[in-house]
């Protein structure tokens, strides 16, 4: 008797499967469309996907989409750049200097769980009702996760590489710039992913007060009127924004982290 030995290996390894992600999206949309048309989903529960798409289209053709989007993108980029930038600097400081670690880690731990939305009135008092309070809210929200990710990434830099640098007499500045920073880059970038998602969440919160334009303001107005089509149109825009940012980050990672195995 001869037969091949049974195969027991394989699996437990993520594979790239194309199209399934889109497929799930399309399937859900089709079910929602079918349900709302057939009537077993009332239009108070869920708007018809085709109506949402038409709303989006009207928004785009009227030019309002661009008005809302440009205002929101400005807030997002200023706030997130500020928060992530300062966060990376402070995170590096904590990772490199024990005094900063001792002084700031408890503070960051105390700031992290505060719901930033709750502080919105305070921010309005501190920074005024204009753009500055919105920038600062987004900056504050992105700051804490960036700090935590950055100093964690610095802590995870391979110590043998730092020893190597010291053993070759590299200056401290060289060790930081050529060994610590590139070594921490993967952790910093994955931290940035989380921070940017939080920035988008906070964008809506920031536009709750004193904002005429902006995707968040648009969603809140629609919500107040129970205009579900516009609500979902706005949410769709935020989703797409998140997906695009994540895509851009993936491209940056692929370029900056080419050396990774």
């Amino acid at each position, binding site marked *: 008797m001869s037969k091949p030995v049974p195969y027991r290996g394989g699996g437990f390894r993520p594979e790239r499967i194309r199209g399934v992600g889109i497929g799930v999206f399309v399937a859900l949309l089709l079910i929602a469309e079918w349900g709302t048309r057939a009537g077993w989903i009332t239009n108070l529960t869920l708007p018809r996907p085709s109506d949402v798409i038409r709303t989006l289209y009207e928004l785009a053709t009227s030019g309002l989409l661009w008005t809302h989007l440009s205002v929101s993108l400005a807030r997002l980029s200023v706030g997130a750049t500020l928060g992530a930038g300062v966060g990376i600097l402070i995170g590096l400081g904590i990772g490199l200097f024990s005094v900063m670690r001792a002084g700031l880690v408890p503070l960051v731990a105390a700031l992290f769980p505060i719901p930033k939305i709750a502080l919105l009135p305070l921010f309005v008092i501190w920074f005024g009702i204009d753009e500055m309070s919105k920038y600062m809210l987004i900056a504050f929200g992105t700051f804490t996760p960036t700090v935590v990710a950055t100093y964690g990434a610095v802590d995870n830099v391979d110590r043998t590489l730092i*020893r*190597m640098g010291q*053993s*070759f*007499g590299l200056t401290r500045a060289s060790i930081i710039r*050529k*060994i610590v920073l590139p070594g921490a880059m993967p952790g910093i970038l994955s931290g940035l992913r989380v921070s940017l998602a939080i920035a988008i969440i906070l964008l809506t919160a920031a536009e709750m007060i004193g904002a005429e334009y902006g995707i968040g303001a648009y969603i809140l107005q629609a919500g107040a009127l129970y205009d579900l089509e516009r609500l979902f149109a706005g949410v769709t825009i935020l989703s797409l924004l998140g997906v695009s940012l994540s895509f851009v980050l993936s491209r940056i990672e692929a370029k900056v982290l080419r*050396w990774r*195995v």
Partner: protein
Amino acid sequence: MDLKIDALTHRYGTTEVLADINLDIPTGRIVCVVGPSGCGKSTLLRFIGGLERPTEGQVLQLSDPPADSLNPFTFVFQDFALLPWRTVDGNVRLVLEDHGLGKAEMDRIITDVLTRTKLADFADALPKNLSGGMKQRVAIARALAVRPAVWLMDEPLSALDAQTRELLMDDLVGLWLRTPFTAVYVTHNLAEAVRLGHRIVVLSRRPGMVRKVIDIETPLENRTAGDPALAAIEQELWQLMRDEAEAADQELIA
């Protein structure tokens, strides 16, 4: 540059790791340090290289290192310690950049050391694309680039397979024959010690003490695999280490 290890003792807390080590490291010789795992041989190397400070005693340099040496005490690590984000060229360049050499001079040194380690064709490769043996040759090229006065080699071949190890041993012998260098070579592999060492220092298990120092007179170029004299020395070393290794194996790691 002769080195002298003078009454060196080291403790981590209350655990004594090294006890009263006295050792001479003569210029132009390879001193192999062997001993069971956990006997503090790598720690000893870090003291010599100034990466750690012993509790008592000191490591003395008996003269100034040669003026052209950019980094007198230079390590070759077991795990290569290459920067994964730098190419072969960039990894060698890293250790030259802080010396204000000028680009032309750096390029000249890099070309020279990569040629001597047979890596000239791989200057632009990233470490992830190199085999273990090539990675260690890059580390050796990097060390050559700074013209060390003393090479501190911490089990440089232990992460490699047997065939690659043989080839690299030949490379090291070749490098030494071209320009004899001073080296402290830590290993747990007795065949390596017998092949490369002019002097072999046997450490006991923790706390590490010098159990025996053996000088081998056979010139490096004449040491062949089947040499009965060398085999006898290897056998003697194994007898010395066997009991220590067995006892060390029975101990809990603190």
